[in-house]
């Protein structure tokens, strides 16, 4: 038996020395240790061995099997390593400096800026609302305290429609509906497309976007308005900004303000963006007129609020340094394709 074993192991050693690949090793494994392998066959001979020798022969065979197993495994590992090295060594050298397919999609710059502003406000607990583009005269004017004979209602300023409605002239047109929709206190912003019957030039559009915000609670003060404006703009411009209020006049707020921000591009030193004035006029705002609250069923003796209207177009132009407002609605893909997904 020992002789047979020695012969097989010698045979195995020769075979393994000649083996070149994992496949060769696999074939050898089958030949030696497979179902009808050479060593497996030897085990079948045990039945003919006298009983008192069976244990010794069994030990002998198991030893041989283990030895064969470890020889094959060692060779398998060596061959696999060799193969891996070969694969790595012979791999095609990839020129990673070649261009990869680019993302050529883009969001409109307004969408990018709008999203950014919305995220600031939602993080401060504001809901984002949506408004109509065609509004009733009541919502657009009367509800927000624009007097019956106010010039803004004139044909030359407002797009009136043949069914008596208007293309909304400001996002304030949504105030009444939103004030009625939510329980108090309210913090909401509502971006939207607005329309004015204007001549279109580099600084004027008949179709433009605003983003309006309102806060209504029991003790809202001018100081609160300053707080929210400052926080929001600091986030948008990614630095602590200084703001100032000047007197303004709008029918829907009292008092009304024009809000300026210390030019974030030159820190107020004077640059083309702020026309060397150091300040940028950014946002009409004010304390919501008590009549506007009343019109929405809110008691102005108990509640007060503030509102602000950001020109989304202006913010977009400031953010990206766009000089001509007409570019925004132009559909000019040479321009629009330059903007990615985020600012």
């Amino acid at each position, binding site marked *: 038996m020992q002789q047979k074993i020695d012969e097989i192991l010698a045979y195995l050693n020769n075979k393994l020395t000649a083996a070149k690949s994992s496949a060769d090793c696999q074939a050898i494994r089958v030949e030696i240790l497979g179902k009808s392998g050479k060593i497996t066959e030897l085990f079948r001979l045990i039945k003919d061995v006298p009983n008192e020798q069976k244990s010794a022969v069994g030990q002998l065979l198991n030893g041989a099997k283990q030895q064969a197993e470890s020889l094959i495994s060692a060779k398998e590992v060596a061959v696999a390593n060799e193969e891996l090295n070969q694969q790595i060594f012979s791999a095609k050298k990839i020129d990673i400096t070649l261009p990869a397919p680019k993302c050529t999609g883009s969001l409109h710059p307004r969408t990018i800026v709008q999203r950014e502003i919305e995220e600031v406000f939602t993080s401060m607990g504001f809901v984002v609302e949506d408004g109509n583009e*065609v509004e009733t005269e009541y919502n657009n004017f009367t509800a927000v305290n624009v007097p019956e*004979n106010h010039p803004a209602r004139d044909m030359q300023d407002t797009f009136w429609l043949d069914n008596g409605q208007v293309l909304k002239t400001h996002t304030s047109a949504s105030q009444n509906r939103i004030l009625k929709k939510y329980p108090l206190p309210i913090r909401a912003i509502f971006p939207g497309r607005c329309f004015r019957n204007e001549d279109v030039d580099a600084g004027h559009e008949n179709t433009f976007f605003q983003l309006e915000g309102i806060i209504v609670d029991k003790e809202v003060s001018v100081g609160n308005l300053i707080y929210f404006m400052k926080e929001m703009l600091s986030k948008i411009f990614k630095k602590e900004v200084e703001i100032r209020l000047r007197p303004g006049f709008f029918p829907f707020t009292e008092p009304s303000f024009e809000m300026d921000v210390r030019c974030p591009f030159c820190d107020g030193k004077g640059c083309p963006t702020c026309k060397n004035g150091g300040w940028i006029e950014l946002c009409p705002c004010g304390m919501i007129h008590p009549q506007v609250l009343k019109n929405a069923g809110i008691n102005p003796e108990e509640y007060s609020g503030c509102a602000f209207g950001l020109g989304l177009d202006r913010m977009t132009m400031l953010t990206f340094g766009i000089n001509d407002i007409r570019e925004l609605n132009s559909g000019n893909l040479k321009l629009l394709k330059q903007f990615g997904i985020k600012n």
Partner: protein
Amino acid sequence: MIISLNWIKEFVNLDGIEIDEIVKRFGLSTAEVESVNYVGNDIEKVVVAKILKVENHPNSNHLHILQVDDGSEQPVQVVCGAPNVRVGLKTFFAQVGGRVKQLKIKPAKLAGVESNGMCCGGNELGIEADTSGIVELDDSLKVGESIFNILPIKDVLIEVDNKSLTNRPDLWGHYGIAREFAAIFNRPLKPLNLDDPSAYSKLKKLNIKVETKNCFRYSSITVANVNKKVSSAIMKLRLNYCGMRDINLLADLTNYIMLELGQPMHAFDNAVVKGITVIEADKPIVMETLEHEKHTIEPGAIVICDDNREPVAIAGVKGGLKSGISANTNSLLIESACFDSMAIRKTSRKIGLITDASTRYEKSLDPELTITAIARLLYLLKEIDGGVKVSSSLTDVYNFKYSIHTIKTDADFICRRGGVNLKETEIVNILTRLGFKVEKQGKNLLVTVPSWRGTKDVSIREDLVEEVFRMYGYDNIKSSTMCMPLKPVDKLSTHEIEYEIKHALASIFNLNEVHSYVWNYLDFNKQIGIEQNSMLHLMEASKSGQTGLRVSLVPTLLKIADENKNKFEDISIFEIGRVFDALDENNLAVERKKLGIVLASESEKDEKLYFKLKQIAEYISNNLVGANLEFKTPAENKIYHPTNSCQIFANKQVGEMGILHPAIAKKIDARKQFAVLELDVNELISSPKQTFKYLPTSKYQPVSLDFNFVADKSTPYSTLENIINNFKCNYILEHSLKDIYINEQTLKDKISYTINVTITPKDKTLSSNDIEKFSKRFIDAFASQNIILRN
């Protein structure tokens, strides 16, 4: 409006305050300053000179050679082209080395004759409008005296944005602005020097009749024996500095009062106009104005007529030619009136004539101002022309009297609204400075609004909050956060999904977002051969000439594609925008938010574009909305390919897509293939959601099988899909379409689909018998629908 700081200083002492500070505080407390212009600094070495000798120029028939005495030791020779040169005339003379605006004065030769200086015209110096010759100065002025000692030509002109004065009728004159400065800097406001019109109460009354409710007040007086024709130099200077032109004494006076008090006035020739009737036109009236322009006044407008009911002026806008002041006028009837702001605005807009007067009347002027204006005019007129005689008593028809109103408030309210703790005394002090009368009643403050603020600007306690804090300084209010209950924010799901759709289209599908207009472009539509009928129209065409609102996004997007077609081989654009395609039962617009996509390519086949649209639609609906889509061929809309297009359903119809009709595509760009999609975003979002349930996985080995099925070409793939979806078995069944094979020779009018099926048993290992059984049942299911296994 332009404000002369010198004029302001006549009414309030601003000594010791820097100009920058004056401008800044005014901007922060009152109104927006557009520009600050330091004038008079560009005049140098201009002095009074006397013409000693006038000689004709040998080489010119309009030039003269003058010898002038400018206070130097020797007379100076100067060549001058003005026609009014004469010996003895005193004029302003710019000496060599001096400057008049852009012009530096140097020794020169004019038509060959030496000239050392320049005699100045009033227009050249910017001090009067006259361009006919050199300034004629009073003989009492000393030769050699600098212009600066004679006229305050050095001034600071502050231009205020008119828009920011819309709600402040009191700020349309210098005196009102001076009142603001007095309040801002806490300095006293000097009273105006006025004549006393009550002194003439014994004189005859004028015949003034007011027949319209739109004339609140008409005050008038007549003056005779006016002999002076020329305004004072300072009056002319101020008019010119403030953007007007001096004309003659009487016209200048009314303009001067307007700039000073904000009250427009009109002077009629009393020889022509003896009395006044104010009417509302009941028929169109044609009127020729002082500028010789004819205007047709429509019925309803306020018209000033004489006592023969002859129209003499368009009320609040412009005087008529016939009744106006001429060079011969020596008696006048003065109008100082107050009209309804809207009536004036309407008339002025209708006839397209916006004047300084109409601009002011539109702001709702203080009706209490008319008498003050007359008293001031009389004072100034008498100062210039001591010989004038007032020839009537002050006649005042005041039909719609301003009612004084009071506002009840308290210091606590004002402080809470501002977010600042102010002492009550400080609040009272500020309001008093602004002309409000404040009466304390326990904790309350009873505030009487002055007439110049009460016509429309100040009426409620919130208005007083503004008054207090704009004076206190908005920049002194501290930023403060709020105390609000912490609550989760409701995110508007449609708004979120809308953004997610945009984001996916741009980042995953490489589409470019565009924004467009809501108009229907009829010309473009016609040009590419599509018809779009608007449901809603603008009453007045937009300035770009469009009238209808769009009913679909597709034509808009095709227009944008058209505009970009020569710059790009491939165009992939989208917009989420509104369309207005219906009216509800109350005749209100039905607005739909749509997603429109246009894909155009010169390299990709239309089929591929069409499938990209399907991929996008399914991505949006499966991944962002959670709804399942079905497609029914073809689309209804005529812009699509008659066969290669479909309606999109998520339970109900949510849109359409397809290859663009070749006839339209050719008209836009024959080189490109076009595919188009339009989805109703809100409909899609509100469609029923698929409830998601995960499938338990199995630990047993799956088996993968390929089947080649042959069907008629007319059989859509969805038939096979349905068979599989309805096939019942105990295994987990997954499938995919692996290949499509068409061969005219071997398959003829058939098509072969290779479908890969993976079956996974749930509770045991599959035996070959199980697999065989499954395959047979599977193939039979297809065979029953005439779809045969190919060998």
